[in-house]
């Protein structure tokens, strides 16, 4: 819908640009500025600019955001026409005001269109990742089902305490304040899947689903994780991710790498370049590959 509208604006730009280039004098007369020397040159330049808008709006694969270039052009036109109207009287002033009104209308359309095209998608933030772990399905499931194990590979979690079979209390290190929330398991099929969600009204809203299936050729287990951050949690998650310099999707992938290391080798693998183990943030700012020294 938006795209069709944007393309229509593109065609309008093309038509207007063509007219301004072909008959600049007619345009200046229409706007009431034909008394100024150089007005036709301005009209031609504006015509060229319109063709540029047309090229962007008609040529781009995702044209909506280019509608902002039209908004910028409109602002310029409004300024020029406003000044023209203020400096004139009589019929010319009326024509300039009419043109100003027309451009203002077009500006409103352009703004609406550009905003529609660049507004963030609504709904919860979803991330998905999977990995193959060289351990039987039952074992991987059991490790995950003991939710208190999660912080051993999810570095952003401080602790998870089981309150009872279904309920658990989660703590996460926040950039400014620590976060705490309760979650409950809403589906639990031994060796198959675990689904959980945060208890409503605790400020944080996350849903999670982890599935376990046999690996290719019956070797190992494919672990498939989907997480969903609801509206309040979503902003928070994005903020936290930014503070840590990590995208939520990257975090989940890194978590799974560490889970694989913990399951297959017993712990998170560390190097002197990445002493905390696999973590996207650290990969941008490596320590040199030499012993660490100081504290053990």
């Amino acid at each position, binding site marked *: 819908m938006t795209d069709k509208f944007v393309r229509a604006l593109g065609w309008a730009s093309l038509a207007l640009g063509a007219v301004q280039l072909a008959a600049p004098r007619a345009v200046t007369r229409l706007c009431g500025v034909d008394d100024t020397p150089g007005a036709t040159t301005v009209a031609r330049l504006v015509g060229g600019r319109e063709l540029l808008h047309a090229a962007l709006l008609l040529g781009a694969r995702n044209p909506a955001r280019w509608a902002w270039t039209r908004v910028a052009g409109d602002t310029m036109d409004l300024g020029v026409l406003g000044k023209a109207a203020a400096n004139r009287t009589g019929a010319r002033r009326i024509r300039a005001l009419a043109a100003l009104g027309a451009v203002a209308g077009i500006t409103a359309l352009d703004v609406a269109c550009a905003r529609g095209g660049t507004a963030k998608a609504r709904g919860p933030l979803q991330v998905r990742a999977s990995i*193959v772990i*060289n351990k039987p399905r039952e074992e991987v499931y059991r490790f995950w089902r003991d939710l208190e194990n999660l912080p051993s590979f999810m570095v952003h979690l401080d602790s998870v305490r089981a309150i009872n079979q279904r309920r658990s209390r989660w703590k996460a290190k926040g950039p400014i304040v620590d976060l705490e929330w309760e979650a409950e398991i809403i589906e639990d099929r031994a060796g198959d899947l675990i689904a959980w969600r945060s208890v409503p009204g605790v400020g944080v809203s996350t849903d999670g689903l982890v599935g376990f299936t046999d690996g290719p050729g019956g*070797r*190992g287990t494919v672990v498939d994780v989907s997480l969903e951050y609801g509206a309040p949690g979503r902003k928070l998650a994005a903020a936290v991710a930014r503070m840590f310099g990590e995208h939520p999707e*990257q975090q989940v*992938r*890194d978590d799974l*790498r560490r889970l*694989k*290391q913990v399951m*297959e*080798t*017993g*712990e998170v*693998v*560390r*190097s*002197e*370049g*990445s*002493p905390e*183990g*696999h973590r*996207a943030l650290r*990969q941008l700012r*490596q*320590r*040199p*590959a*030499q*012993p*660490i*020294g*100081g504290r*053990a």
Partner: protein
Amino acid sequence: MKANVWMGRNRLEIQDVPDPQILNARDAIVRVTSTAICGSDLHLVDGYIPTVKKGDVLGHEFMGEVVEVGSGVRDLHVGDRVVVPFPIACGACFACEEGLYSVCENSNPNAGIAEKLMGHAPAGIFGYSHMLGGFPGGQAEYVRVPFADVGPIKVEDDLPDEKVLFLSDIFPTGFMGAEMCDIKPGQTIAIWGAGPVGQFAAASAFLLGADRVIVIDRFPYRLRRVQRTGAEVLNYEEVNVLDALRDMTGGRGPDACIDAVGMEAHHPTPAIYAYDRTKQAARLETERPYVLREAIMACRNGGVVSVIGVYGGFVDKFPMGTVMNRSLTIRTGQCHVQRYTEPLLQRIRGGEIDPSFVISHRMPLSEAPHAFELFKNKQDECNKVVLTP
């Protein structure tokens, strides 16, 4: 402790760095008794391997004595004498179970970096860039060795360091290069590069039953060395290699070709050398793939091109047409050293081969930067340097 530290392109320094400490329960600390400079270290020094960082300790060929073990190490004890394979491998993942140790799925804590460059990540390697883990290397007095009960092989005192040190890399690497050729009796194997790895590849090709081995290089002293294995030699500055190999094989070409040179090859025609050298200097390609191109052109129809020389990134003008139309097989990989340490140790013990034949220089670790100069510039007939801390 003292360590050989990379401080920028063509800048190495012996520096005082902290002693290593246990970071994972399955680590051991090894006091290095012998370490070596590898041809592939030169790619790091020359700055052609991405993600090397100022302050990195180099070296991936080393052996020594275990002085500390983590709580999770089962069958390795303080006092054990070990040779350490250069790829770090967990022994428990799918790749390790398949014997593909140099692509272990767990030993690279910077797998994310490697994935961006290579699609999937290989294993961690000692002292060989951050995309391969960010692990300090063995050109030092002490090294932390992860998964100490998987990789390191225990060696009794009766064999001196010089006979077993090269189990860490170049002997298994040369051997795997020959093994990938699937050598059958009567076959002829051509090897580009008469450096230590080429020399081991030649010796291994004979061990595996090759009839003839032809080695190509341009340094007479290296060609003389490799002749001792029984190989014939070609100096590419004196003959046209493709013509010579055709002549020597009745027009058919060698049954298999081994590239033991890799990304910094040379070419006798100045214009052709300049073409790739310029692109490499401008980082438009990371390799100078003359050997790879020539090995592919030389190989007989249906033969194997076995690549053990190190490549880092992208190759230009790759003759895929001849690979496809002539049914060639390309086999390659960083050596899965852990697969070969035990059987090759048996061959050494059995007297089939004495790997110390490659050594030309023995120097203290404190002279490592100078040793790199000798090795890089082929001065003083430098073939292989062993350093002792």
